[in-house]
């Protein structure tokens, strides 16, 4: 049977891995992302997502270089995102060794590009990144462009529309939960999982291994974390052992050192 996946996310700014707290990125964790990938590879994580959160469009080429260096040592599926605004850059990232493209802002600004990428590279290649944030009136809405622009859209409806445009997977994050150490936004996660047929990856807020279990129980097919994996030796192995002990079917590899 298909296993639930444990995904390590790397948030990259100007070539370095950074910590993310409510979408602000200050602390550099590892200078070199390749070192982080080597650890995750050794610890048998199931998949890796790397996101370029730089606010400068000029970061695109440098990031593609990071993808290329990482992919040489990455023998699990690699999803990459940030600044995918045209077909050539998308193709460049795939040529650099990425398996999947994570798209966010073009879901709002350029839906035909999402459709075109899905047609050209296949649905399995397109991951829709859905970022949600609670607004002043207390409603959870979708935000795009590194959480700088509210859309007013409901996350579940937005995810459904992303699938219609050709996304094969949803990567859900909450600005309010990101780096807040209180687990995923389970309510929104559950609504998204109920709204789409494609796999949903939960992200944002993991501070204990039990948070991962909660994500699976809310309906996620895969659970992702970033910050927590960087500070603990054999972190992903401990996480997997915890999931297995909680009765979640995970890949057996990577539970023991």
């Amino acid at each position: 049977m298909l296993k639930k996946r444990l995904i390590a996310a790397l948030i990259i700014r100007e070539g370095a891995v950074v910590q993310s707290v409510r979408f602000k990125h200050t602390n550099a964790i590892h200078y070199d992302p390749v070192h982080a990938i080597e650890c995750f590879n050794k610890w048998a994580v199931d998949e890796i997502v790397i996101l370029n959160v730089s606010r400068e469009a000029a970061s695109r080429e440098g990031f593609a270089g990071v993808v290329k260096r990482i992919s040489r040592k990455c023998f699990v599926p690699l999803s990459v995102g940030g600044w995918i605004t045209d077909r050539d850059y998308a193709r460049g990232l795939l040529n650099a060794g990425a398996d999947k493209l994570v798209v966010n802002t073009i879901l709002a600004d350029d839906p035909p590009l999402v459709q075109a990428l899905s047609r050209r590279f296949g649905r399995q290649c397109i991951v829709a990144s859905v970022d949600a944030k609670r607004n002043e009136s207390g409603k959870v809405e979708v935000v795009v462009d590194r959480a700088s622009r509210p859309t007013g859209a409901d996350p579940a409806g937005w995810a459904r529309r992303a699938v219609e445009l050709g996304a094969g997977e949803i990567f859900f994050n909450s600005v309010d939960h990101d780096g807040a150490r209180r687990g995923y936004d389970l309510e929104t996660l559950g609504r998204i999982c109920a709204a789409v047929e494609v796999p949903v990856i939960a992200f944002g807020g993991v501070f204990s291994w039990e948070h991962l279990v909660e994500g699976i129980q809310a309906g996620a097919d895969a659970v992702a974390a970033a910050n927590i994996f960087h500070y603990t030796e054999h972190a992903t192995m401990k996480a997997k052992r915890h999931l297995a002990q909680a009765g979640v079917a995970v890949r057996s590899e990577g539970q023991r050192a």
Partner: protein
Amino acid sequence: MAPRPRQARRRSAVSTRVAIVDYGMGNIWSVQNALAEVGAQSELVAAPERLGEFDKIILPGVGAFGDAMRLLREAGMQRALEEKARQGMPVLGVCLGMQLMCRSSTENGSHQGLGWIDAEVIALEPAQGVKIPHMGWNTVRFAKPSPLTEGIADGTDFYFVHGYQVVCKDPADVLGTCEHGQRVTAMLAHGNLFAAQFHPEKSQRGGLQMLKNFVERV
């Protein structure tokens, strides 16, 4: 000078040259990275006349069956591959590459494949609690011994991404299976022909071992 067969054998394993067929379908760099990791020499090969320079062939592929066959045909690669396969050169099909080795596929119509394996490619059946495409890590059970799976534990998880499946006429061709609402053909072995529906290059330790086996033991 006295012969030193053991050393000669080791050297020949190291110098095995693998052609990765480059016909415009999918992430072939990953396959090359994985081969480099296990110490194999490989090249991306787009010119059919160059296949003769190699000892083994990997036929990768992600995408639609019909497009892939058309590209192989137009490049003259279909005929070159057929010739090498007939001559007994080991070939490893990966993902769509495995499906292309079959007689035909029903993906978006009806398409003829390379026809090396007596099998049809049909859509995965939707079933309760199962999502299509089949994407993620799944447990593979080996159906028979093979040099391709030496040193890999039965029940190892491999990474799959596919919406169509291979159904063999002759069960003896099936090397491995997995469960996804139904029993799915995960690996094939037929003479010098081998194939995996999953992505060994993305299946970490087990996948790398499989590629190493293809280079060194097949």
